[in-house]
């Protein structure tokens, strides 16, 4: 074929700042969501300074009070201020969600890298194991693990992180295998290229964007799982403040009409998860338009 001889295309230029800004501007929703998350995290961090009352302070004189100026989100059966409890609960929810996700990323990525590098029967066994774990809907598996290991915050975090590991394992494994292929293709470099170099130079830059996106979305999911587990009585128990527990406490009060008890903790969950999802979606667009696919 007598095709036109074309000189190789110019190397892609890294995005200038104006391009970055333009991308952020196109996604005001995600940016707002990011601010919301940062806000919630800060509130949780500085809870003692922000909360109007101590979370466990009971007040027999003002039990079951609706929304008012003294108690913005009302009080519960023992007179505890709901707003303060919700603020302090943010600490538990955010930290468990974060711990579970971080652990899953670390373990999953490490395993994925090892498995992807070794290949062979190790890979086969690992993939079957991953299939088995993923055969359980995540919440149900977390339920089983927490029930078996005993009710504690740590166990809940562990259970949730176990259900998340397969996703990261697969992700990193895929990348590692791709990188290994590239290595073999370049004969000169195959000999004696230490694993750590492969990881740092080839693997990480490619993995980081999808990893970050996945982890952000997973935080929201971890939060939902955790709240649902405590709602049904696993993990965090009353009287500790946690959004799921508080919603459960509020559930029994619905029939007597105290709506503020279940509504606000649940709303807190929803807003936080929504924010994580929006940030995750926005990051997906921002970090790599190719990854975006269809939005």
């Amino acid at each position, binding site marked *: 074929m007598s095709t036109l001889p074309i000189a190789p295309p110019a190397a892609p230029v890294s995005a200038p700042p104006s391009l970055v800004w333009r991308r952020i501007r196109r996604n005001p929703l995600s940016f707002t969501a990011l601010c919301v998350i940062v806000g919630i995290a800060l509130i949780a961090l500085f809870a003692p300074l922000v909360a109007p009352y101590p979370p466990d302070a009971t007040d027999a004189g003002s039990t079951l009070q609706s929304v008012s100026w003294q108690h913005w989100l009302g009080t519960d059966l023992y007179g505890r201020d709901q707003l303060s409890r919700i603020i302090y609960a943010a600490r538990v929810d955010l930290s468990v969600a974060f711990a579970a996700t971080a652990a899953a990323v670390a373990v999953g990525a490490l395993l994925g890298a090892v498995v992807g590098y070794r290949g062979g029967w190790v890979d086969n066994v690992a993939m079957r194991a991953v299939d088995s774990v993923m055969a359980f809907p995540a*919440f*149900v598996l977390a339920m089983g693990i927490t*029930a078996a290991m005993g009710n504690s915050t740590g166990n809940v975090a562990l259970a949730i992180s176990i259900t998340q590991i397969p996703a990261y394992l697969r992700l990193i494994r895929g990348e590692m295998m791709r990188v290994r292929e590239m290595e073999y293709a370049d004969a000169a470099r195959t000999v004696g290229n230490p694993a750590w170099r492969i990881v740092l130079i080839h693997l990480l830059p490619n993995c980081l964007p999808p990893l970050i996106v996945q982890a952000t979305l997973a935080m929201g999911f971890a939060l*939902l799982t955790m709240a649902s587990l405590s709602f049904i009585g696993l993990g965090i128990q009353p009287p500790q403040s946690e959004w799921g527990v508080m919603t459960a406490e509020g559930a029994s009060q*619905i029939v007597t009409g105290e709506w503020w008890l279940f509504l606000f903790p*649940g709303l807190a969950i929803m807003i936080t*998860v929504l924010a994580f999802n929006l940030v995750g979606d926005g990051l997906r667009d921002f970090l790599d338009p190719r990854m975006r696919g269809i939005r």
Partner: protein
Amino acid sequence: MGFLNYLVRRLALVLPTLFGVSLICFFLTYMLPGNPAMVKAGPFATAEHLAEMEHQMGLDRSVPEQYFRYVTGLFHGDLGESSSTGRPVSQDFIQRLPATLELNLAALLIAIVIGIPLGVLSAVHRDTFIDHVGRVVGITGVAMPSFWTGLLFVYVFFYLLNLAPPPLGRLGSGITPPTHITGLYVVDSLMTGNWIALRSSLYQLMLPAATLGISVMAPVARMVRSTMLEILESDYIKAAWAAGLPRHTVIYGDALRNAMIPVITILGIVFGFLMAGNAVVESVFAWPGIGNYAVTALMTKDSGPIQSFVLFVALMYVAVNLLVDLAYGLADPRIRLR
């Protein structure tokens, strides 16, 4: 033949997964801290009684032996006993399964009937008002905890508006269940012409099905939307436009036909969401299904129902995914004819 090939390969994949699932459940049941014999024997058991219980349960055997006993027990339908009801778990399960089934089917119906058209319309009218509504519904629906949605419904529709019954189970008080044919009250009352039971069971089913359905509808709508969008950008759709085919043929004929095939896969994933949401929704509405069974067992640290629930859900999920994959293989001519 293409499909047979596909079938065999797919079945082969299932076996190691089933093995893995049984291993995990075995591990959860027997290997974690805590002595199951102690739980079963009760807090007042003497040391001898405990030892005897351990022997009976095979806890003094080696691990592989215990696993073997566990799996053979499963094949005989032995899921252990519930310390709260005192009956074999398998019996409790069978009794409660229809309730869960009815709830799941109703929720699935709602999710499909609303979710799929919403996803399709969202994709077809991209970036218009409909799309924005669809995407907002999708993205908030996924963020709402199902227990919260359920409580919200109860508060609004029962407490405030008095349009729904109190969340006390499958039938209103004083109403006897219809003659047992399938165990699904709605179906049974239809089949026996029992209008009172029909009305009551539908009335009670309304809110829990809506709650579960909505929690599942959001991911369905999102997935349908993205599938449809991808298809609308494909080469063959562009060729269809260029050939002068009318709009409704291109979108609701050509594109949709292609989209419905991956939607089958989506249904498999949806089932997973349903089973995950089951435990929570049943507990909010005091729905006497297997999810609620597992949750109430938690309070008494009765581990039999819980782990059996986990195992059952996993097995069902594997089975449903297998069926879904087979249906996909039949529906997609690229696999069926090779």
